[in-house]
Every structure is written in C-alpha cells, then in structure tokens.
C-alpha cells in the first residue's frame, strides 16, 4: 500500500468479537442418523441436480440419487441407506420461503459399505492419475466448495488447469465470528487436508499452495504446519485477524499481493481459492471414493445449550442437529444458517442442512440488537470499513430514492455483501438489506427488459412475415392478371387467326 493510500485510504474490514471458543475447543461429536433426511437437489451454485431415483426405491449409503444437469451443477448422493419416500417440495432455507425440490429418505439403518455405486473408485496413488481424471472423480463425488458459496469444485479445478493458475490458495481464514468448523477440521484432520491440497495441486498444475489461517487459531496453524512439513509446495501462512479476511478477493490480495480484477475470476489473477473443507473432501473422494454426504457444522450462539462442532449428514433438519447438539436454552431471538455476518436468518428450524452449511447459530436476545435505524449522518464509518472501497452511504442514498441504476453505477456490482458497512453504521441503517433489495429490483428490471425485447422481436418478426405474405399475394395476383391477359390475348389471336382461316377457307370455297 502506498503512502498516499495509507494516509488517505481506508483501513478495510472490521473486528467483531469472534466468540469462537469454547465451541472450537470442544471435540467433534458425530451425529447419529436421524429417522428422515431431506436432501435438496440444489445445494450448489448453478442448475439443480436431476433426480436419478424414484419414490419407493431403496438406496444405499453413498448411492448417487441425483445427476448434475447443465454445465454448472453437481451430483448428489444418499447420506444414509434407506427408502426414498418422496421427491418433492420442502421448505427451503431461504428467507423468500419458496420451497425447494428435495429427495426424502426414510433411513432404515442398514449401512452400506463406502463407495457404493455412485462414488468414484478408491485410488492409492492419485498422483499417477491424469489431472482431468481427478476432476472427473471429484465431480463424481459431488464435491462443492464448502466455505459457503458451494461452487462445484470439479469445474474450478478444470478451469484453473485451463487458465494456467500458478498459485492455489487454501482458505483457512474462517473470519466469521462463532464459526469454528474449519478450525476444528484443521486441528483434527490436517494430514487429510494437506493430502487434498496436494491432489488439487496435481489437478490444477499450480506451482504452490498457500494456506491462509487467521492468527487466532494457533492450534490449527501448528497442526497444519506439522502436516505440511514434508511438502515443500504447501506453505502455511498465518494472516491477520480481520473480517472479511476469508473473502476470496481479500485473501488473495493478502497472501499474494494480487488484486483480482473486477468482474473476473481469480484465475485471471493467476490464483484459485479453495476452502480447507473442500481439500478434505477431495482427499476423501479420490483416496477412498467417498462422496460428499456429511460435513462438520458449528452449532453456536447464546441460545445453544452445548456449543460445539457436529459431524452431521447432509439433509438432516436444523432442528435435529440442534436437538442432538444439546438443544436450546431459550427461545432464540434469531436462528441463522451460516455465519453471523453473512448467514441467513431462518424462519423456522425445519430446513435441511446442505453441503455449504458451515454453522447453525441460535442467537439469544442479548446477542442481537434490533434498534430502529436513524438518519445517515455521513460519518463515513461504512466507507472506511468497506473492503471493496465502495461508498455504501451513497449507494444507499440512491436506493432510498428508488434510483437503482444510480446505485449500480456506484459499485453495487462490486459489493460482496460482507456486511461490514451495516456492522459499523452508528445509525444502524440496514445497508445490506438495501443492497439486496436493489439487486432484486435490478434483476427484475433486467428480466422485464429481456421479455420486452423478446416480445418486440416477435412482433417485428410477425409484421415482417405479414408484409412478406402481403407482398407475395400481390405479386401472385399480378402474375395471375398478367397470365390472364396473356391468355386472353392468345385466345384473341387464335380467334382472329381462326377467323382469318375461315375467311380464307370461305374465299377458297368462293373461289
């Protein structure tokens, strides 16, 4: 950072209290299979998977129950053995309340062996595999990014290979308060994570891997250092504690000094970012042929009786996970899926866990603060906190005046919805909500515009067609007229000729 930027620039980010301990220090508890699992078909970015089973069908643990559909999608596997009882809509973990499609499995407890049907074959020496084959197997195992965005990992691997990415960045930042599942995973499974990282290095052709871990996780740093000691291409890099350090762009900048250009992929800056959980899932998939059917999730918050990390099957209801984790001390003021800063608030606990769920937070009334907003006093705290260098107050001003295009012109596209601005705003203006609202309206406008364009094109095509038809008709009529005229002329000529002939004949007769 230049001197000018230091003096006049912004010290991005915020430092919320992390609330990670004691949950982070408690050993992982393994949740037993609940009676019923609800496995959503859209757990990843992109198109939902296409169900490959029928209601009433028996499935084995790890069996593939849905296939990827379209270019960006991921396979889904049965987290437990049982019977598919329904494929239909269930309440979604989404504030809109719109239901999502899910496969409901009645668990019957019969445990099938690992790697049944759906998963890739186990492999002892992944480094002998062709990089493309690794990508195929990762896709077969249904691995997606486990940091939250849930982008299909196989696609990221193959596109990085194509783009010639040099540096693989592994996100162990876990900058969100309350969450500690990545921390726990690094402490307990460092060798598997490092193995996964090395497999990904092989698959992408990247030169080196940098693992960024925030300094507030000394145990994880030590465990990962130990595991990576024998591998020169994997470097553990402790990074400052600052939210949103775990955001792709900020992490890449901090670790490599490279700035990912606006609107481009990290690969355009020669890097690719994967989460530590993803690295572990890749190792599991390639070495043991295990599909991604369970994950570590942090249960935390003032209303949770026994905060800690739970190894839970995908598709388990939030209510079941909470109950296993010790239940609730009190009615939570808010129930959140994901992190404190970017997670979404749930209307109820009857929604299933998905591959990207890193935490379930039951916040007590003392932890939330629902004071009504005051007017903006232009204090610029939001602008100083914004990691993207935006001016949230300006965007909000345009949005408040229903000028969504104006907000878009002032950086709405660059906003990563990290929530730093709303976190620091002394007037408690719900800035992120403003931005989400504006994005929704802009998307609706865009759809309307596309529709209008389509209608206009159709109308144009129709009038062109009609004009062409009319022209053809007119031409045909003219042609017919001309033909008729010609025929008449011919007939006349014939008649005249005939008359002449008969005249001649008469003359001959006369003669």
């Amino acid at each position, binding site marked *: 950072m230049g001197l000018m930027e230091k003096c006049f620039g912004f010290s991005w980010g915020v430092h919320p209290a992390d609330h990670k301990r004691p949950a982070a220090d408690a050993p992982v508890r393994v949740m037993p299979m609940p009676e019923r699992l609800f496995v959503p078909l859209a757990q990843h970015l992109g198109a939902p998977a296409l169900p490959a089973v029928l209601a009433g069908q028996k499935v084995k643990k790890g069996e593939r129950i849905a296939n990827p559909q379209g270019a960006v999608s991921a396979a889904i596997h049965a987290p437990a053995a049982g019977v598919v009882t329904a494929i239909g809509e269930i309440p979604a973990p989404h504030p809109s309340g719109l239901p999502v499609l899910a496969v409901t499995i009645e668990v019957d407890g019969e445990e099938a062996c690992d790697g049944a049907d759906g998963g890739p074959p186990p492999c002892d020496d992944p480094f002998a595999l062709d990089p493309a084959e690794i990508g195929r197997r990762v896709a077969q195992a249904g691995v997606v990014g486990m940091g939250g965005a849930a982008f299909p990992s196989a696609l990221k691997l193959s596109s990085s290979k194509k783009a010639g990415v040099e540096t693989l960045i592994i996100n162990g930042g876990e900058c969100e308060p309350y969450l500690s599942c990545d921390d726990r995973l690094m402490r307990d499974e460092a060798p598997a994570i490092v193995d996964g990282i090395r497999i990904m290095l092989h698959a992408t052709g990247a030169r080196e891997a940098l693992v960024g871990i925030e300094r507030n996780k000394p145990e994880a740093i030590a465990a990962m250092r130990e595991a990576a000691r024998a591998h020169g291409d994997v470097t553990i890099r402790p990074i400052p504690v600052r939210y949103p350090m775990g955001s792709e762009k900020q992490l890449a900048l901090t670790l490599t000094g490279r700035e990912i250009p606006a609107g481009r992929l990290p690969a355009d800056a020669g890097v690719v970012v994967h989460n530590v959980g993803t690295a572990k899932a890749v190792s599991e998939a390639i070495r043991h042929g295990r599909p991604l059917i369970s994950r570590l999730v942090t249960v935390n918050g003032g209303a949770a009786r026994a905060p800690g990390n739970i190894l839970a099957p995908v598709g388990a209801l939030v209510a079941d996970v909470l109950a296993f984790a010790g239940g609730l001390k009190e009615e939570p003021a808010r129930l959140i899926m994901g992190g404190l800063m970017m997670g979404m608030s*749930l209307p109820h606990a009857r929604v299933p866990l998905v591959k990207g769920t890193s935490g379930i937070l039951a916040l007590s009334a003392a932890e*939330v603060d629902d004071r009504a907003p005051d007017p903006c006093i232009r204090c610029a705290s939001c602008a100083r906190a914004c*990691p993207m260098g935006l001016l949230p107050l300006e965007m909000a001003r345009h949005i408040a005046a229903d000028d969504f295009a104006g907000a878009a012109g002032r950086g709405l596209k660059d906003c990563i919805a990290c929530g730093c601005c709303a976190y620091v705003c002394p007037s408690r203006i719900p800035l992120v909500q403003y931005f989400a609202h504006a994005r929704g309206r802009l998307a609706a406008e865009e759809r309307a515009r596309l529709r209008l364009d389509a209608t206009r094109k159709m109308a144009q095509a129709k009038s062109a067609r009609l004009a062409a038809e009319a022209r053809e008709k007119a031409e045909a009529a003219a042609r017919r007229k001309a033909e008729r005229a010609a025929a008449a002329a011919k007939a006349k000529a014939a008649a005249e000729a005939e008359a002449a002939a008969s005249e001649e004949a008469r003359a001959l007769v006369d003669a």
Partner: protein
Amino acid sequence: MNPIAYQAGRTYASPHAHGGGKGARAMFFVQLALAPATLFGFWLYGWPAFFLWLVTILSALFFEFTCLRLMGNKTPGRVLCDGSALLTGWLLAMTLPPWAPWWIGFIGAFIAIVIGKQVFGGLGQNVFNPAMAARVALLISFPLQLTTWVAPLPLAAPPSPGWLESLHIALGQAAPPDAMTSASLLGYARSELARGADLLQAFAAGQAAPRISWLGVRAGSLGESSAPLLALGGLFLLASGVIRWHAPAGMLAGVLVPAFIAHAAAPGAYLDAQAHLLSGALLLGAFFIATDYVTTPITGAGRFIFGLGAGIMTWIIRSLGGYPEGVAFAILFMNALTPLIDRCTRPRVFGRTRAGEALEAGASSGESA
C-alpha cells in the same frame, strides 16, 4: 426449548451483529471536548456569557422540538436525545460575542435549527453547517451586536458585573459599559489597515492595541479565546476516533502557510501566523466545525481538501476581504463545494482503476499486506 418449536416472527437481513457504535456517542464526545473552552469563556467574560450560552442552547432544543412536532414526528424526545440540536446550539453560542443580548442567541438558534437544518430535511440532510449559517446571517443582520466585544474580565475581578447586572446585560436592557468594550485583534488590524496604517506600527503603538495571548485572555467570542483548551478538546476527539486529522490539518495549513509567507514578504500589511492561529475562530473551526460529518466530504482526501480550502479562504477574507474574520464564510463556501469534492475523491474500488475500469487481467497491483 424444543428446536422444532422455533418459529420466527420474521427473517432478518445480515449481518446479524452490530459493532455497537452510536451517533449520540460522537455528539456526546464533542460536547465533552467543548466543555473546557466553554468554562474558560464563562470565567473570562462573566455571567452574561453563561446566560447567552444557556439561552442559545435552550432555544436550539426548543426549535428542534417544535419543528419535529409540526412535521408530525411521534417521538421528538428520541430525536432530541441524539444530541445534535444541543451541539448546534452550543457551537453557535461559542461563536457569539459573550455579552450579546439574549435575542441574538434566540434568533441565531432559529436560523440554525429551522432554516439551516430542518428546512433541508433534518439531521444528515443539511448542506451548510447550521451554526455557521446562523452566525453569518446574524453578522449580516445585526453587525453592531455581533462586533461588540468586551475586554476579558475574569469572573472574580472587581469590575466584573454581578449576577443581577449580568442578567440585565443578557436581557439586552443594559449595554456593556463603554469602558469595557474592546476591539478584537483581527478587528483592530482590519480597521488600522483600512486607515492605511502600517500593522507593525499600529501594534507597537501603546495600550490600545490588542495583544496576542497564548492563554486566550483576550477580547473575542464566547468560546473561541482559549487556544490551548480548544486544541486539547480537538486532540481528545482525535484520540477517541470521533474526528480524523485530515480536515483540521488542512485548515490549519490553509491559514498558517499563506500567513507565514505573506507576513515574511510584507510584515506591515499582513498579520503573522501566530496572530492568525490565536485569533478568531480558527481553532474552533478547524477541530469542531470543519470536522462536522454532515456538511463535509466523506473521504480522508476530500476532508483534507475541504480543510485546506476553508483555511485558504479564511486567510484571504481576513487579509484581503471586508470582514475581519472569515472562518464562517469560508466554511459555508466549502460546504457548497462538498458534493463536488466528494465526486472527485471517491476511493478506488477493489479490482478497478481509479477511473472505474476493471483492472487488466494478470496485472498485479503491486500492493501487498
């Protein structure tokens, strides 16, 4: 509690936590920072100053309350608690001549709160600093009352007016006795220059000339006299993070650098930097007015430019203009330029050039943590 029974009334937007900052806290800190210099003003100018201060603040609260009521605000009390009307009244009182009659404070508060703030839409919407707008309007409307200064008369000193007498002065029933009126340094310099006198000789000449006082024992506005106490308040605000250094530094530089150069070139025609620093509203303006959130630019660079502009304008008005003091005019002038400064000093967006274009793929910005 059984988790399955959980049913939220509604869902909430992220983030689900707040840093805990409050606008009222900043206002409170500013008032705290103003207190020493204000108390010093009371001590220096006696009870009339206190009465004027009280009237101005109460009037500001009264007008704020009335406006909110008239506009149908259901909880005017809650808004009053944000402390901004109180602060506006306080700042205005700081800039008034300490023995001005009560109605100066009352009218000033009306101009500041009603015309300067509520007409624009209330807190956060005003373009001009309300206290400065009121101060300028008063100066133009009531030039006599706004330029009648009294010699410093510490409270305990014998000629200082007593309680009752002070009340008369504050109520405007008694004018300050002639023996007590005094010229401010800037006013003296201006009138001497207007006479065509040389400043060096004018200040060298006898008793009549006001002296520079580092402690602030001088004729001047209610709360502008004590440079050390104002600076102390400013440093406190800087240390507590309520204000940032850009605007004060810019403003001080904007006045002192030209003053130094001009005085060095023509000492007879221009006051020196020290006189500028210790006179008028410069320190109050730099630390308390140019740092107002609402009416100044957002970014550090913008605030520096704002301060610099206000400082240079102040020096120009003081040295070349028709008025002896220029801080209020300069601030209002820069307030008007604030949207423009904001537009020119937007921060660089991540992944984009300063012009807003996406960075080249593969290019490294060279920045590293």
